[in-house]
């Protein structure tokens, strides 16, 4: 699926550019983007390692175990296939909490570890397990309670009340996550683990 989409994005881009006469733009964009990706990773290298360092302290202190214990009933419902007390649950909890707080770059390393643990439980290594699908769906349904960057842009453009969108934003976020979970659970029933 991913291979297919990735290839399609490039081929569609080149085909459209050939028709609209934008091939030069495409050439520039390809090279610029490759450079931007590395620049992004340089920033990430700093910020993410700061978070993983801090999270390691939280882990050693037992803070993460405490939080994931609190989230256990919810996680059991979302991920019935993960055995109780499995490491994956700890990483999923960390990922969810960081996402909810809007600490996206603290969420990613925990999320990748969660995927790694889920892969250990997975019987077909090239195919996503039910737990992986659900974890990804929730991650992509937006969990962040308050999107600070949007509030900042609104103030920057002289909004009279930048925060008036917090309430509706929160409701819309809950709707998207809930619908995502329902959709995931619906598709889950029609297929194997």
């Amino acid at each position, binding site marked *: 699926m991913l291979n297919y989409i990735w290839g399609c994005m490039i081929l569609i881009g080149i085909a459209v550019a050939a028709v609209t006469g934008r091939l030069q733009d495409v050439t520039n964009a390809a090279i610029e983007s490759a450079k931007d990706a590395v620049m992004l990773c340089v920033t990430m290298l700093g910020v993410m390692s700061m978070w993983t360092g801090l999270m390691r302290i939280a882990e*050693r202190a037992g803070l993460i175990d405490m939080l994931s214990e609190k989230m256990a009933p919810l996680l059991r419902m979302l991920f019935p296939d993960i055995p109780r007390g499995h490491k994956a649950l700890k990483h999923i909890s960390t990922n969810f909490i960081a996402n909810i707080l809007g600490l996206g770059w603290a969420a990613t390393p925990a999320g990748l570890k969660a995927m790694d643990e889920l892969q250990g439980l997975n019987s077909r290594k090239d195919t996503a397990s039910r737990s992986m*699908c659900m974890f990804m769906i929730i991650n992509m349904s937006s969990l962040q309670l308050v999107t600070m960057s949007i509030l900042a842009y609104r103030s920057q453009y002289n909004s009279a009340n930048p925060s008036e969108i917090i309430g509706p934003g929160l409701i819309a976020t809950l709707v998207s996550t809930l619908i995502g979970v329902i959709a995931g659970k619906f*598709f889950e029933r029609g297929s194997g683990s």
Partner: protein
Amino acid sequence: MSYIMMLSNLIIPMTFAVIILYGYAKRVELYDNFIEGAKDGMQTVVGILPTIVGLMVAVGILRASGALDIISRLILPLTSRLGYPNEAVPLTLMRLVSSSASTGLLLDLFKKYGPDSYMGRFVSIMMSCTETVFYTMSVYFMSVKITKTRYTLTSALIANFAGVAASLLLTNILFPS
């Protein structure tokens, strides 16, 4: 507003303070563990770098070609029948593939209509409840070499669509134009 801004400014320092204090109380070797964890994080970033390069190149090519504008124009008859604001269509599509490009489009709309207009409010809410689906999916699945993603994309698109629909409905109810 200032209250919320203050609270948000506190999130990161408070996260630091709570973790350090908790670690201190449990007699964890703070700096040693930080360094060990940070080393781990660096390896993670290096591991996902190739995925990000591949992804950003593909998105860059797609953007520069103008394909998204053409797709927006093609679905315009459908979206305007549904009462969807025309000029928000490219942003809605871009949101799925690129965070930085969609921010650019958001700011263009703010500049043109102002953040307190119907359009400004709608896109603000819509941006808060949607995610860059393709980016997240590539980075996470590629890290464990999963190529068959089953119903993940469909469900994620349904979730995002529901978020967009909810945003439109909420804007119409709370801020009628």
